[in-house]
């Protein structure tokens, strides 16, 4: 453990957007005034009770919150150890946790009078959530998506277009999430006057990592209350998958100052950590990209390397800066799961619980299969089931068919 442990793990970031050495505002001057405006607009919104009240209304009646905390009885029996609960974020409107953040940001954009919304997306879940809320509030929506992801997540591309969004396939670089974010930033720098950039994860320049975390923290806040009702106490462990890390941060943050709660984040190990993967903490080191300092996959010259994961939502060579800090302070343990492990977990959960998970949380389920059997039956473990697998059904179907051949 780091000798200079903070008094609280929940007080960050500082006023310059730093979590320890991580975070910051590494953006072009053109964007800097906008980021300062956003910081102020968000602070004003946060202090305005009517903002929270309005958001709570939409969270309840439009998103469908609170999402249930479900006791996964068959999976628990199957693994024979810890008592496993799922936080059912996949039951939200649009099918994932992404909507929690998008709702918040769109409401901030409305306060700022911005009429044109841009977003980047990997798996398409953030893009779908953004397209949905733009439709709901009558805003123009442009979604940047890597051309590779457009191919492997077709169902979400069709959904976004049905919702009235323009999906721009990004052909630069590795044509995945990182490149989608580059092109979204290029759009933003060009259309500064009328455009709001709705970032989908706890990354980017300050205040995004903090703001997205705050909007996602509803996950952990509800979990605390629901676990109290179900079991009369705190959970013993939490686990969530991590690409940028917004679903994980949302679950973890309200528990960071409860030392009895063990916390696990699961990165995507792709073909394995010695081959192509997307595990920034396991295989990367601190660097600067997309507005913040954080763990990144890169070569010795500081050039960013292509990530790989079966899951488009985890296929990113970085991680949110607060996760980098939680890793270095030792508060959260970061594990990784391979493509094959995630595929196996995807199938197991579909058959045992009648829930087809997205490939992203399937990575966390894969680690539960290792962690749960080693823990006693009274150990309460919560997994963030961050998205549903409908979008992955064609891709997984093809892979399984290929394997049978």
């Amino acid at each position, binding site marked *: 453990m780091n000798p200079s442990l903070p008094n609280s793990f929940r007080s960050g970031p500082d006023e*310059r957007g730093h979590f320890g050495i991580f975070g*910051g*505002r*590494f*953006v*072009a*001057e*053109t*964007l*800097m*005034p*906008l980021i300062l405006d956003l910081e102020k607009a968000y602070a004003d919104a946060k202090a305005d009770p009517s903002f929270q009240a309005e958001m709570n209304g939409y969270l309840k009646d439009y998103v469908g919150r609170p999402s249930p905390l479900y006791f996964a009885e068959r999976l628990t029996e199957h693994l024979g150890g810890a008592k496993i609960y799922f936080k059912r974020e996949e039951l939200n409107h649009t099918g994932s946790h992404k909507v929690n953040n998008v709702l918040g940001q769109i409401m901030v954009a409305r306060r700022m009078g911005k009429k044109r919304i841009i977003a980047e997306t990997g798996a398409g879940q953030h893009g779908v959530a953004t397209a949905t809320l733009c439709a709901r509030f009558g805003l123009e929506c442009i979604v940047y998506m890597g051309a590779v992801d457009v191919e492997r997540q077709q169902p979400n591309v069709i959904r976004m277009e049905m919702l009235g969004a323009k999906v721009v396939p990004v052909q*630069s*670089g590795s044509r995945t999430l*990182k*490149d989608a974010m*580059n092109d979204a*930033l*290029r759009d933003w*720098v*060009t*259309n*500064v*006057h009328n455009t709001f950039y709705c970032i989908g994860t706890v990354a980017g320049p300050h205040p995004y990592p903090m703001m997205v975390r705050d909007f996602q923290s509803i996950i952990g806040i509800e979990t605390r209350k629901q676990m109290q009702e179900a079991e009369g106490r705190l959970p013993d462990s939490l686990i969530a998958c991590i690409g940028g890390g917004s679903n994980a941060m949302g679950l973890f943050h309200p528990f960071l100052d409860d030392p009895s709660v063990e916390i696990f984040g699961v990165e995507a190990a792709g073909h394995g950590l010695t081959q192509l993967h997307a595990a920034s903490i396991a295989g990367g080191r601190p*660097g*600067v*990209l*997309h*507005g913040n*300092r954080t763990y*990144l996959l*890169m070569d*010795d*010259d*500081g*050039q*960013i390397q292509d990530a790989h994961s079966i899951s488009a939502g985890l296929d990113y060579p970085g991680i949110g800066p607060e996760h980098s800090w939680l890793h270095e302070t030792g508060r959260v343990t970061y594990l990784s799961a391979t493509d094959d492990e995630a595929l196996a977990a995807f199938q197991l959960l579909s058959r045992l619980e009648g829930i087809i998970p997205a490939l992203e949380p399937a990575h966390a389920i894969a680690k539960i299969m290792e962690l749960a059997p080693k823990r006693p039956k009274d150990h309460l473990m919560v997994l963030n089931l961050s998205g549903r697998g409908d979008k992955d059904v064609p891709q997984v179907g093809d892979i399984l068919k290929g394997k049978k051949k």
Partner: protein
Amino acid sequence: MTTRIDTRFAELAKQGRSAFVTFVMAGDPDPKTALDIIKALPKAGADMIEIGMPFTDPMADGPSIQAAGLRALKAGMTLKKTLEMVRAFRKDDDTTPLVLMGYYNPIYIYGVDKFVVDAKTAGVDGLIIVDLPPEEDTELCLPAMKAGLNFIRLATPTTDDKRLPAVLANTSGFVYYVAVTGITGSASADSNVVGEAVARIKRHTKLPVCVGFGIRTPEAARAIAEKANGSVVGTALVDALKASLDAEDRATPKTVGAVADLVAALAQGVRGAKQAAE
């Protein structure tokens, strides 16, 4: 501490003309050709040279400069080799100011303290780092100033009067005014709007103001030269280079000349300017 940049602007002020600044990417299309190009630039009429440090994820650059960086990386260019190239250039030319332009991560990974010393020793005069606003001055700007390098800041149409003093505070060498909101090689700059913006910046600083982004032709360069202390051309040169390559993006006998000829034409435009800004 006087750098080659300060000296060059003082000379140009005496001559009463505006600077012509060229941007080329280090290692594009290969390290040797890139060095030959850079060596040819002063003779062709470049008063100052910006050398791009290739990066995989250049968030403020358009497709042309993105592709140039990727060609250079594919040809094995690294930050270390960029500094070697500067050393090689300096063997024959000790007066043309050289400015490295790029993104922070390769420098951060190289090590800031080592980088500022190595860059100064190699013969670099200034740095333009796109993703380091004044809010992050402790990262590289202050160490660079201490090492005797100019840290040249970008001012943009979104930098208002309230923010300008912060942007100018630790700027030296010159101020780089980004003429358009957008990425390199996109919209073209309107010289009247640019003139007003330059005048606004000059109310806050005595530093020379150079203008870049969106200048492609001798006429445009001349129009800007009449309003500012310098004009920067990048994408047009990178496009000329790209057009000279073979189908596999390799240099041809035409490559160095293609860039030098365009630089000569643009330099003519700048020298034809009626009067440089005060």
